[in-house]
């Protein structure tokens, strides 16, 4: 939905750039609320087509999660629409959740209570991809356990 496909397995590869362009245009029109989240995931890692692909993979390095959090936070601050700003806010939290869950690292200076509250809020947002919500819930449980 975002950019060139990493693999071009057949003779149709010459049309792939146009297909990719049409696909993300169509995606943008049909699912405008989620498109910005997908595009930023692609900006961070062109092999990832969505926040779920980027954030729910334990092999995504912390450096990429940190970069993603900065970009989603910028969307939270300056997104064109309220939906985009909300999405940016939730996905910035999801980046922090992924860093904590998969790498045991903190991307923010929030204390435990504030971090737990932000995880709970994001996990409860039905507008987020279910895979992302599940990952954030797992981070929430791990943090709650660590807090005793």
């Amino acid at each position: 939905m975002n950019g060139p496909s990493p693999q071009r397995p057949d003779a149709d590869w010459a049309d792939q750039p146009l297909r990719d362009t049409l696909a993300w245009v169509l995606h943008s029109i049909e699912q405008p609320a989620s498109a910005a989240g997908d595009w930023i995931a692609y900006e961070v890692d062109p092999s990832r087509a969505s926040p779920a692909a980027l954030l729910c993979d334990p092999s995504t390095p912390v450096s990429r999660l940190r970069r993603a959090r900065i970009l989603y936070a910028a969307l939270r601050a300056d997104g064109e629409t309220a939906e985009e700003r909300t999405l940016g806010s939730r996905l910035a939290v999801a980046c922090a959740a992924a860093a904590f869950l998969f790498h045991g690292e903190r991307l923010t200076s929030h204390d435990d209570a504030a971090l737990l509250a932000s995880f709970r809020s994001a996990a409860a947002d039905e507008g987020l991809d279910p895979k992302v919500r599940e990952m954030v819930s797992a981070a929430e449980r791990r943090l709650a356990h660590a807090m005793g």
Partner: protein
Amino acid sequence: MDVPAAPMTTPEDRPRTAPPSSDEASVREWGAIYAYIRQAGRSPEEARDLTQGFIADVLLGRDLRSRLDERRGAFRTLLLSSVRNYLADRYRHDHAARRHPGGDRRHVGGDAIESGIVDPAGVDPERAFARAWISRLVHEAAEAVRAEALATGREMAWDAFESRVLRAMLEGAEPPSYETIMRRWGLDSPGDVANAIVSMRRAFARRFAALVGDTVDASPASARAELRALLGLLEGRAS
């Protein structure tokens, strides 16, 4: 596929409901018409002559665009069927001329038709038509977004979008890093670059959809359906 560059018009930021002039239309559709004819087996020279003949005789001569009944679908499909019919007519005309040597054979060489000159890529004429049609839409949408961005002082946004998305996607160019773009434009945060790209992507998508909408009717549903049809054509699905 060697599609010669048609003379491009300067895209204007006109309202989407304003129809293009006939002269402009003849130029805008040139590439798709040529691609079909060329891929149908004509030599480059014959394809150019036939393309010009079709534009003069059918597209403009019969005012093809005015014959579009919106309920019947896209202008693209009307144009494609008209080109196909025109080629068949020319073929019959040429063969009649060969049986009656005094006839007019100014456009088509029969030997070339029969032997064919086939693009090594082997794509069928309809797919070549679709590819050129979509390429033209991409070009026009990009040009319109660029003009709008520059007119509103958003040079950085256009630069980021063009270099990291458009050129990377369409030309396979290596995209510059965020840091390169930040240095170029004196930015402090990568978030500024990302937001600019998101904004430009959205503007491009809107513009592209509007251009597609102009070839069907005014409803967003029709534009979406046509976008899906175009995507299906490139994926080898009939439309």
